């Protein structure tokens, strides 16, 4: 964390504080920094820029060069988007740069952010063509570029090699069925005395149930806005999840598990499998945090045995872009920040810190190719697509989807019923 600066005096801030106790503020820490850049992001975006493993603070030069301090405010994915849109909807916001995920920018949302084409023209990003065109496309709404891609997160299957060995499993699964079987076997108490769950998955993200549905050739909402194009596949996917839950291969606390918990559980050996972006590999194997450094490996999420070899598995990739709220101040500084973060040097540095790089050239860099998961990721990425496309009621649709999925997985609702319910409840939202 680099929260050296948490309070700096601006006019409005001063107005607010002076009444309450300017004296206290004066006694508190104050820093003689020219400018402040407020960034609203997920914690991981901040981590990859400097405090992860790797070569320290990637933006040190930028800070000194621009005489600016960067203040990060971080939230979990969904709350982050809620907050970003709320801030952008106001008259003015203090946040100069925000991070947006590619399934959120609808027309209305996009209108709240600065179109970046003119910035690009005036003050171009280094070798912009190097940034994956597909990702750039995802940040383009109505022909206007609203965000510069900064991270892509392709979901892969992570497993703890040590735990697999302990249970006599020599190779990771190649089909979904094998994965389930292994996960069940890996629900045990390890030698270290830790109770191990076969798999840990967050319950508040659509990513995971969608992956299971895709393993059977289904989907939630596809790119053509078809809702549940293959309901049976969704049913099969949910059935698998439910069975895993019933057998304890998914922990009892499934319903309150958060994305972050997945990382900790794997690091501590409390779970054998999880689904996370490949980029998390570095963090999962971090010597300081993980009890199993070097033992956590990643592969493509396996497809069901029926489809194996017939169609490729379509894993989920989500991409993040940096946006400038149209109501923010000092947009020049924001753009300078975006430009710097998008540079080849920083992109590579972030990739080393565990960021999914957005530049094609990064994959060619020797120091990144050594990354144990780079090749797998590149392979998976070929068939990957987003969890669902952006539309105005996407947040509510996701919430309904997750509610029904949780009910089904926890065994409170028949799977068929839940899937039917998803269909009827989400449908009106798509039409709206």
């Amino acid at each position: 964390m680099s929260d050296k600066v948490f309070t700096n005096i601006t006019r409005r801030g001063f107005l607010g504080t002076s009444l309450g106790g300017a004296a206290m503020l004066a006694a508190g820490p104050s820093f003689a920094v020219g400018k402040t850049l407020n960034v609203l992001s997920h914690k991981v975006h901040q981590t990859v820029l400097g405090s992860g493993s790797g070569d320290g603070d990637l933006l040190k030069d930028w800070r000194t060069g621009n005489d600016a301090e960067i203040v990060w405010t971080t939230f979990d994915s969904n709350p982050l988007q809620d907050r970003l849109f709320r801030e952008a909807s106001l008259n003015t916001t203090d946040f100069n740069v925000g991070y947006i995920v590619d399934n959120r920018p609808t027309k209305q949302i996009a209108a709240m952010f600065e179109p970046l084409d003119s910035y690009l023209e005036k003050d171009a990003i280094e070798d912009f063509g190097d940034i994956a065109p597909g990702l750039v496309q995802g940040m383009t709404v109505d022909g206007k570029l609203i965000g510069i891609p900064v991270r892509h997160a392709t979901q892969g299957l992570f497993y703890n090699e040590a735990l697999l060995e302990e249970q006599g499993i020599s190779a990771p699964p190649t089909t979904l069925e094998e994965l389930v079987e292994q996960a069940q076997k890996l629900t045990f108490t390890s030698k270290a005395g830790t109770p191990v769950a076969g798999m840990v998955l967050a319950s508040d993200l659509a990513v995971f149930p969608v992956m299971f549905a895709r393993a059977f050739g289904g989907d939630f909402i596809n790119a053509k806005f078809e809702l549940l194009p293959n309901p049976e596949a969704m049913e099969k996917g949910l059935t698998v999840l439910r069975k895993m839950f019933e057998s304890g291969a998914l922990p009892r606390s499934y319903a309150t598990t958060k994305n972050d918990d997945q990382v900790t559980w794997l690091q501590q050996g409390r779970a054998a499998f999880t689904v996370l972006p490949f980029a998390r590999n570095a963090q999962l194997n971090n010597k300081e945090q993980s009890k199993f450094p070097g033992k956590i490996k990643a592969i493509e999420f396996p497809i069901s045995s029926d489809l194996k070899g017939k169609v490729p598995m379509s894993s989920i990739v989500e991409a993040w872009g940096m946006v400038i709220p149209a109501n923010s101040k000092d947009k020049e500084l924001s753009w300078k920040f975006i430009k710097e973060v998008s540079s080849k040097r920083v992109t590579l540095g972030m990739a080393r810190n565990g960021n999914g790089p957005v530049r094609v050239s990064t994959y060619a860099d020797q120091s990144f190719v050594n990354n144990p998961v780079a090749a797998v990721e590149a392979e998976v990425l070929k068939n990957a697509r987003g969890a669902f496309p952006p539309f105005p009621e996407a947040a509510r649709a996701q919430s309904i989807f997750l509610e029904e999925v949780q009910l089904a997985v926890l065994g409170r609702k028949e799977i068929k019923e839940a899937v039917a319910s998803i269909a009827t409840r989400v449908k009106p939202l798509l039409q709206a």
Partner: protein
Amino acid sequence: MRLNKITEALPFLAPVQILILSVIVIPSLYVVWLSLNASSFGQSATFVGLDNYIRVLTDPAFLLALGNTVLIVIFAVHLELALGLGMALLFASGLPFRRVLLVAVLAPYAVSEVIAVAMWRFLFDPDVGPVTAMLTWLGLPMLDWSFEPSHALIMIGLLTIWLHLPFTFIILYAARLAIPKDLYEAARIDGATAFDAFRRVTIPLLGPAIVVALLFRYIFAFRIFSEVWLMTQGGPARSTEVVAVYLYQEAFSFNAFGTAAATAWIMVLASLLLATGYVFLLRKQVAGNVH
């Protein structure tokens, strides 16, 4: 001269009234307008009449949230009242170190919801929580709050009780201390047993205090937000959502300001209803005591 006095009083009253009007009353009225329109980000409001209210009231998620809220209000508040009453009587019966004990009982009042949730989440953590460990050791079932919605609600209820028991207790205790000792002496001379005295003297005289404590706690329990939000965020599967969390979701997750506003006014009306019901009862009771 009378008018003169009002003008003299006005500068003293104005700050409070201005604060309340500008922060609570006018925004609340604006919420009424919002609730009659459909709006979201980047979308101008369109008048939809009572549509938002109908949508909220027919939304199963809202009904579930309402049901949960009512459950918490009914169970937590009444249990809390019973505990508070028991403690008040225990304290009134004479305890050594009463002042110290009183302070100990008050302590949870100082604890913020955030920290209380952190504490309780840890104590009842299914894997590492000390209370869970103790329950298992005693062969009792653990509180499986992260999985069972009913357990989660119990956990939220316990947490609420823990946080607010000091309030209920103090009100009842103060009321109990206000009952003159002579009454109990007179009752004893009249041949009343301890239980008779409790039933025929204590309870009727505590009546108004009990009603007041209940009224307050109903109203405050009805708006419960932080405990639930921090403990379960309404999960699993929105099964532990309460009305305030539902409102928050509508407003700040789904950006549906119209339905959020409708929910807000349903909350206000429900609170007023609870209040008037009990104010009415209270008046009747006071009148009854006079006769």
